[in-house]
C-alpha cells in the first residue's frame, strides 16, 4: 500500500517557490489565453499545495489522463488548432498545471522549472516590449532562485539564494550579449510563428462601411513614429496617406489590391517646400505604407506607388520597418482626368441612397459651380445639426440617407462617405482616403507619435485645373479633431472612463517618457535586424558578412566565453596551485603506486604504505619528513633539492626492489 500512501511533505519547502516561479512565467500569457486556462492553473496549484500540506495523496493516473485529455480538447475547442503561439502557450500552461499533479520528487520540479523557463521565453513570441527585458531577467532570476532553493538541502537564507542565482545569471550575460550581436538575423526567418489572427487588431481596415460598426474602439497603440529632419508641418497638414477607396456599392467603400502603377508618380506636380522625415512603422500585417500627403521619394525596398498614389510594399509589414521619405504638402495631382476616369470616380450604384443623391443634385444646381457646391455641402455639415461622435447609431440600408437625414451623428467615416456620395451624385469625381491624421510631438524625444486613434478618413475631389485635392468634411463638423496639437482621442478613451476630462500633466509626462524610452528600445535593440547586423559586422571588420561567418564567430565566442567562465570557476573553487614540494610528493605517491585517500595526512599515508611494504620504510620515511619540512616547516628548512633526491632514490629503490621481487620472491 506504500504506493498509494500520501505525500511526505518533503517538498513543502521548495514547492511554493516552484509554484511562484511557474506563476510568474505564465503571467504574461494569461491575458491572451482563455479564462479557463487561468482557472485550471490556479486550481492545480492550490490542489498540489494542499496535497503537500495535508499529506494527501496525489490523484491517480486515470484522473490525470482524463484531465490531460480534457485540457487538450479544451485547447482544441478554444483555438480550433494546436499549433501557433496561442494554442501552444495555452497547452504549455495547462500541461504545466497538470504536471503539478504528478510532481512527487525533485526531478519533477526540475521539469516544471524547465517549463517555466520555456514559458518565459515564449512570451517573446508575442511581443518584445521594453518591459520584456526586465521581465525576462526577473523571471529567470526567479526560476533560478526556485531552482536553488529546491536543490539546497541546507538551510540557506533567501538572500543567499537570490545572490547565487544572480551570480549565475551574471556569468551568462556576456554569452547573452554575444548571442544577441552575432546570432544571424535573416530577412526571411527559418521558421515562422503563426500569430493569433485575433490579436492582430492594428492597422487600418481596407474597406469602409459606415454604420456597420456602431462604435469605434480607440486604441492608443502606436501606429508609427516620425522624426522630422525638416520643419514639422502644422497639424492641419499632417495627413498620412494610406489607402484610397473608390468603389462604392451603396454601403461599403472598397479600393484596389495594392499594385504598382508606374504612371502614378508622373501624375503629380510637386510644389512648395519638401518635408523630410523618417517613419518607424509598427507591424500591421498589411501592405500599406504611410507617408505624408503626398510622397515623392521613399527608401523602403519593394515599395511602390499604386494607382491612386498610395504606397504599398510587396511584402506585408510583419516586422517593424523604418524608412526615410520626402513629401510635398503642396502638390498638383492629375491636372487632366480622362473621360473614363471621370466616369469612374462619379459612379454610384443605382437606387441606393436616393435622398442623398437628390439633395446633392438639387444643391449643385442651386450652387451654380462646383466650388460653391462643395463649400455649401461643407457649410451644411458645419451649420446644421451634425454631431461628431464615436458612438453613432447603426444605419442599416441606405446608410448615407439615414446619416444625412436622420441620425446626423457619426465620425470621420460617415462624413467622408456621405461627402463622397454627394460629390459623385453632383458629378464631381471624388474618392475616400484612409490614413492617419495628426500626431503628437513627444517633447522627450523630439519625434511625433501617430496612434491608431489617429486613424482618419477624408476625401479627395477632382476639379478641373486644381486636380485632385483634399477635403476633410470631418474638419467642417469637428475642427478640433483636426487642429488638436495633442492627441485628445487617447484620453477621450481612457480618461473618459475614469471621469477625467482633461489628461493630467503628470500622466502626459509619464506617457511621453515611456514612449520615448520605447522608441530608444526599438531603435537600439529591436531594430537590430539583418541590415543593421551586416553593417555592424562590416564595422567590426568582417568582410562580406553572411550567416555562416556570423554563426562561426558566435560559436567561437561562445566556446571562448565558456572556457573563460570555467577557468574563473576553477580558479575560484580549486585549491591554490600545488607548490614544488607538493608536486614532488605527488611524484612520490605515484611511484609508490598507492593513491593517498581523502584527508589522509603524510604520516598516515606513510604508515599505510609501509604497513605492507616494510622494506620501503627508510626511503619513504625520508621523503615524508623532508616533504613535511619543506611544505609545512619554516622556509629555511625547506630543501627541495633533498626532497627531490629522496623521491628519486625512493623511485629507484621501488623499481629495483619491485623488479627483484618479481624475479625471486624468496629473497
Amino acid at each position: 500500500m506504500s504506493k498509494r500512501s500520501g505525500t511526505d511533505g518533503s517538498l513543502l519547502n521548495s514547492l511554493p517557490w516552484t509554484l511562484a516561479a511557474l506563476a510568474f512565467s505564465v503571467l504574461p500569457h494569461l491575458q491572451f489565453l482563455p479564462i479557463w486556462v487561468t482557472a485550471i492553473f490556479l486550481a492545480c496549484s492550490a490542489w498540489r499545495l494542499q496535497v503537500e500540506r495535508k499529506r494527501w495523496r496525489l490523484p491517480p493516473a486515470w484522473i490525470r489522463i482524463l484531465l490531460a485529455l480534457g485540457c487538450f480538447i479544451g485547447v482544441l475547442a478554444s483555438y480550433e488548432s494546436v499549433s501557433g503561439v496561442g494554442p501552444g502557450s495555452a497547452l504549455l500552461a495547462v500541461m504545466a498545471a497538470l504536471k503539478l499533479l504528478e510532481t512527487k520528487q525533485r526531478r519533477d520540479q526540475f521539469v516544471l522549472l524547465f517549463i517555466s523557463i520555456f514559458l518565459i521565453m515564449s512570451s517573446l513570441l508575442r511581443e518584445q516590449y521594453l518591459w520584456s527585458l526586465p521581465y525576462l531577467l526577473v523571471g529567470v532570476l526567479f526560476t533560478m532562485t526556485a531552482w536553488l532553493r529546491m536543490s539546497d538541502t541546507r538551510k540557506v537564507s533567501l538572500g543567499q539564494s537570490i545572490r547565487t542565482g544572480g551570480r549565475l545569471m551574471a556569468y551568462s550575460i556576456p554569452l547573452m550579449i554575444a548571442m544577441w550581436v552575432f546570432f544571424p538575423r535573416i530577412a526571411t526567418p527559418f521558421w515562422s510563428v503563426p500569430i493569433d489572427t485575433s490579436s492582430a487588431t492594428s492597422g487600418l481596415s481596407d474597406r469602409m462601411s459606415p454604420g456597420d460598426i456602431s462604435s469605434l474602439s480607440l486604441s492608443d497603440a502606436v501606429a508609427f513614429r516620425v522624426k522630422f529632419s525638416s520643419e514639422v508641418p502644422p497639424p492641419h497638414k499632417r495627413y498620412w496617406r494610406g489607402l484610397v477607396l473608390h468603389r462604392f456599392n451603396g454601403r461599403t467603400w472598397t479600393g484596389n489590391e495594392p499594385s504598382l502603377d508606374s504612371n502614378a508618380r508622373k501624375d503629380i506636380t510637386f510644389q512648395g517646400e519638401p518635408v523630410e522625415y523618417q517613419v518607424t512603422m509598427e507591424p500591421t500585417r498589411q501592405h500599406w505604407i504611410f507617408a505624408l500627403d503626398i510622397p515623392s521619394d521613399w527608401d523602403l525596398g519593394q515599395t511602390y506607388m499604386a494607382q491612386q498614389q498610395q504606397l504599398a510594399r510587396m511584402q506585408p509589414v510583419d516586422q517593424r520597418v523604418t524608412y526615410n521619405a520626402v513629401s510635398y504638402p503642396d502638390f498638383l495631382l492629375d491636372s487632366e482626368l480622362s473621360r473614363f476616369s471621370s466616369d469612374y470616380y462619379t459612379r454610384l450604384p443605382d437606387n441606393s441612397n436616393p435622398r442623398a443623391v437628390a439633395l446633392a443634385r438639387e444643391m449643385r444646381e442651386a450652387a451654380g459651380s462646383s466650388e460653391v457646391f462643395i463649400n455649401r455641402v461643407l457649410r451644411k455639415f458645419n451649420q446644421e445639426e451634425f454631431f461628431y461622435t464615436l458612438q453613432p447609431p447603426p444605419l442599416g440600408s441606405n446608410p448615407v440617407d439615414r446619416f444625412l437625414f436622420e441620425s446626423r451623428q457619426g465620425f470621420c467615416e460617415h462624413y467622408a462617405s456621405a461627402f463622397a456620395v454627394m460629390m459623385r451624385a453632383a458629378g464631381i469625381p471624388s474618392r475616400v482616403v484612409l490614413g492617419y491624421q495628426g500626431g503628437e510631438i513627444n517633447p522627450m524625444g523630439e519625434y511625433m507619435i501617430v496612434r491608431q486613434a489617429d486613424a482618419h478618413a477624408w476625401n479627395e475631389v477632382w476639379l478641373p485645373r486644381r486636380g485632385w485635392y483634399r477635403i476633410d468634411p470631418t474638419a467642417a463638423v469637428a475642427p478640433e479633431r483636426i487642429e488638436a496639437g495633442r492627441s485628445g482621442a487617447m484620453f477621450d478613451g481612457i480618461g473618459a472612463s475614469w471621469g477625467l476630462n482633461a489628461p493630467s500633466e503628470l500622466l502626459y509626462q509619464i506617457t511621453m517618457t515611456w514612449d520615448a524610452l520605447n522608441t530608444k528600445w526599438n531603435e537600439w535593440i529591436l531594430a537590430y535586424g539583418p541590415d543593421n547586423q551586416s553593417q555592424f559586422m562590416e564595422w567590426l571588420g568582417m568582410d562580406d558578412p553572411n550567416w555562416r561567418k556570423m554563426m562561426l564567430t558566435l560559436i567561437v565566442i561562445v566556446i571562448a566565453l565558456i572556457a573563460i567562465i570555467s577557468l574563473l570557476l576553477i580558479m575560484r573553487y580549486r585549491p591554490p596551485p600545488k607548490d614544488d614540494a607538493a608536486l614532488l610528493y605527488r611524484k612520490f605517491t605515484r611511484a609508490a603506486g598507492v593513491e593517498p585517500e581523502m584527508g589522509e595526512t603524510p604520516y598516515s599515508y606513510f604508515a599505510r604504505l609501509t604497513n605492507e611494504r616494510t622494506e620501503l620504510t627508510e626511503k619513504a620515511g625520508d621523503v615524508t619528513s623532508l616533504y613535511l619540512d619543506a611544505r609545512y616547516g619554516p622556509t629555511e628548512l625547506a630543501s627541495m633539492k633533498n626532497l627531490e633526491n629522496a623521491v628519486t632514490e625512493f623511485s629507484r629503490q621501488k623499481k629495483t626492489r619491485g623488479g627483484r621481487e618479481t624475479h625471486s620472491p624468496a629473497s
Partner: protein
Amino acid sequence: MQQGNTLEKLPLSAKPRDALNAARKSLGSIILGKDGEISLALACLLARGHLLIEDLPGLGKTILAQSIARVLGLSFQRIQFTSDLLPADIVGVSIFRQESGQFEFQPGPIFAELVLADEVNRATPKAQSALLEAMEERQVSVDGHTHQLPTPYFVVATQNPSDQIGTFPLPESQLDRFLMRLELGYPNEENERALLIGTDRRQMLTQIRPTMNPETLTALQQAVTEVHMTDPLIDYVQALVRFTRESPDIETGLSPRGALALVAAARAHAYVENHSGVFPDDVQAVFGPVAGHRLKPASNSAYRTPAELSRYVLDNVNIP
C-alpha cells in the same frame, strides 16, 4: 598563595624543549599506552587552554591531572564536585578575624596553579559557573575585592558521560571554554597487564619529580605561539572549517573562535611533537579534541558522537 601540595622547586634544565621531553617521558611512565592523549593534554596546557576529560570513572582521569601538575611543577588543588557544592567552596570566603577586627579573605581551592575539577557535571549549574567564570576571567571577585588567579593557571575538569545518573551536563557555551575535550578510553591488553603487575600509580605519583618550573612553562607557552605555519596548512584549516559549516550533517559548524582554538592547539601539538612546523597530522590530531564538543550534528545525521563527527569531517576534506 600557593597551598596544598606545594612542590619543592628544583633547578631545572635550561632548555624548555628538554624539560618538555622529560615531562612527556615521566607522564608516559605513569599513564601507560596513552602517549597521544598525553601529547594532547600537554599541548592543551601549552596553548594556555583548559582541559576537559570525559570518560567513565576509573580510567585514570584524576591520575593524569595529578601527574601533569607534578611533572610541570605546579601547585595542585582538587575540587570534588558534588551536588551540594557551593560557589564559596570553590572560590573561598571572607572570615571575620576578631584579633584584627577585619574580614580576611580565605582563598578557596581554585587558587592553585592547576585545579582539578573532578566530576564537574555532578555539581549544580551555580557551582559550575563559579568555576567556569574564574577560568575565563582568570580572576575571582569576592565581597567586592578582585583576586587574581595565579599564572600559569590551568583547569583540568573531568566529567562523566552525561547519560549517567545525577549529572548536570555543561551547556554548550560553557563547553566552549575548554580548549580540548579528551576521552581516555580503556588501556589495551598489554598496558593493562603492565598496570596490574606494576607499582601502585598513586605511590609512583609521589615519586616523580617536577621537570620544569613556571618560568620554563611560560617560555614554552611563548615558544608554542611561534611555531611556523605555512599557507597550505592555513588553507587546510580553512577547508575543514568551511566543511563543518557547509556539511548537511552538521547543524552548527565551527565558529571563528573554534577555528582559532584549532590553530592554537595544532601549534602546541606541533611543538610537543617536535615538528618543524604545523603539519596536517597536528591539525588532525587536535581536531577531534578541539572541534568535537563544538560541533553539533544535524538531527538526521548518521554521525552521532563527537568522535564520529570529527572523523567524518577529516575523511572528507582534502589536504591541500
